[in-house]
């Protein structure tokens, strides 16, 4: 059963468990590859995570001169292959979300690979498996559809990936509450 990473951004409480979990994934060499941002840092405590959204047509891979960024059969856009990455940083400039990180010492780009060693076997990525508030979830397409029904406000305002992102992505994003000015019921 193919599952996707699914983000309900407004649930985020800013605990940064996802960052800590990311460092512990095999192959991540104890460095996290995701971000948590304060939405309005001087006013309130709302935070949102920002992950690689694993574009269907990824700008990072398109701009890579070395073919170092490979796309896995699950749709995950993988981190740079260590032997191929030539350190040009095209990918960091190309990514519309500013996700890839670059290590100048190692001359190597690294980015979220959806913990491919886990997710290729259907195990949720580290971030989703530790998130205490269900901001990050690991769901099947049917479950995501059910979510859509649950939050269907009959006003065409199901806010997910497309109109707010730059292209089709494998990670689905949803924030039914904030943009629509409604409080979410659990």
């Amino acid at each position, binding site marked *: 059963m193919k599952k996707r990473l699914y983000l309900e*951004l407004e649930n985020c409480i800013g605990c*940064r468990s996802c*960052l*800590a979990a*990311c*460092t512990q994934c*095999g*192959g*991540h*060499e*104890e*460095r*996290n590859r995701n*971000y*948590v*941002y*304060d*939405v*309005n*840092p*001087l006013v309130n405590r*709302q935070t*949102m995570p*920002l992950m690689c959204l694993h574009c269907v*047509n990824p*700008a990072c891979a*398109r*701009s*890579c*001169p*070395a*073919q170092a960024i490979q796309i896995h059969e699950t749709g995950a856009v993988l981190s740079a292959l*260590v*032997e*191929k990455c*030539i*350190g*040009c*940083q*095209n990918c*960091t*400039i*190309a990514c*519309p*979300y*500013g996700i890839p990180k670059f*290590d100048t*010492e*190692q*001359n*190597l780009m690294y980015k979220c690979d959806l913990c*491919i*060693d886990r997710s290729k076997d259907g195990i949720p990525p580290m971030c989703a498996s530790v998130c205490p508030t269900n901001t990050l979830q690991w769901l099947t397409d049917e479950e995501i559809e059910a979510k859509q029904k649950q939050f269907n406000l009959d006003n065409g305002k199901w806010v997910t990936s497309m109109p*707010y992102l*730059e*292209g089709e992505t494998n990670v689905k*994003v949803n*924030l039914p509450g*904030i*943009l629509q000015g409604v409080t979410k019921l659990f």
Partner: protein
Amino acid sequence: MQANTSTTKKTESSVNDAFASHFAKSMFLSIVGLLILTFIGTRMFTHVDLNLYGYMVGTIVFIGGFFYRFIAWGERPPTKLFIKKGLKLLFRKSTPKTAVNHLAIFDFIRNRGVYRWVQHILIGWGCVLACLVTFPLVFSWMYFTMEDNGYYTIVLFGMNIMNVKADGIIAWLSYNALNIAAIMVTAGVCMALYRRLKNMQARAEQKFIYDFLPLYLLLFISITGLLLTVQNVFLHGWMQPQMSLIHQFSVIVTLIYLPFGKLAHIPFRPVSVFARNYREHYGEQHMKECKVCGDQFVSVEQSNDVIQVLGVNEIDFNMNDGFNLAELCLPCRRKYRIAKFSGFATHQVKVKEANQNANG
């Protein structure tokens, strides 16, 4: 005058027209080059070592595979740009230093781990040494003659380079260069295999075909090569002809495989020197400032190149509110995305992004 230029143009284009493709032209030129070098090296084909003709055929098949892969790779829009601009910037002052760093002592691998650096040095330099001995021997660019008893003459490209004592140190090193290379490669491959078996991170990601096969191939070559020496020295050449065929097979298979698997990073790696030159050169010229925070985050040249490359792929990031994402530095780009999600303009708040590293 005009007629003259048009005829030169015609002849120019007709030279290229002689070839069906880029591939055919590269192939033709390299094989002609090899033939000429061999013609000179063998003193007009009088010293061809036909014992090694299998390697010769293998090398030519390898060149075919290499050009096929390399040309397909070089035709990708971003690769093409880097190769073109990299060649233009090849004669920068820093090029020798960067090249030594990236291609000879692998500083960036040392920063990934000393163990991996040692294994890479052993495998890499072992292979280079082996190639430097093997290919000149295969094409008879280098051979040995004995004019005086007890003294070998080393002949390189048809020129007598030096006379060495048959039991001297230089002669010993020449006879054993391939053994030394094999021992280096074997040690390096064993280190790499040990890491791949023990290291949990490596185990999580590796695949048999991609990560192990090249190591086993190198091991296969080294062990069969060393066995040849063992058979000669200790077994009076027992089964030596058979083993030499097996060794030849192992080398040819690896050569043919080389451009298509993990080992393809060897011929592609020089582009990392191009990339470094490109970033340094255009970084000194004109940096792009972030439209929101004003930080200089990338050279204008690289930004434009990436925009162009993405344009070829029909990707552009013009926003409804007049922004183009290429105008934002990376932290601002992330904040802008948060702003898109929340409806609040996070990127306009003049606060540095919070610590994004989980190490506190």
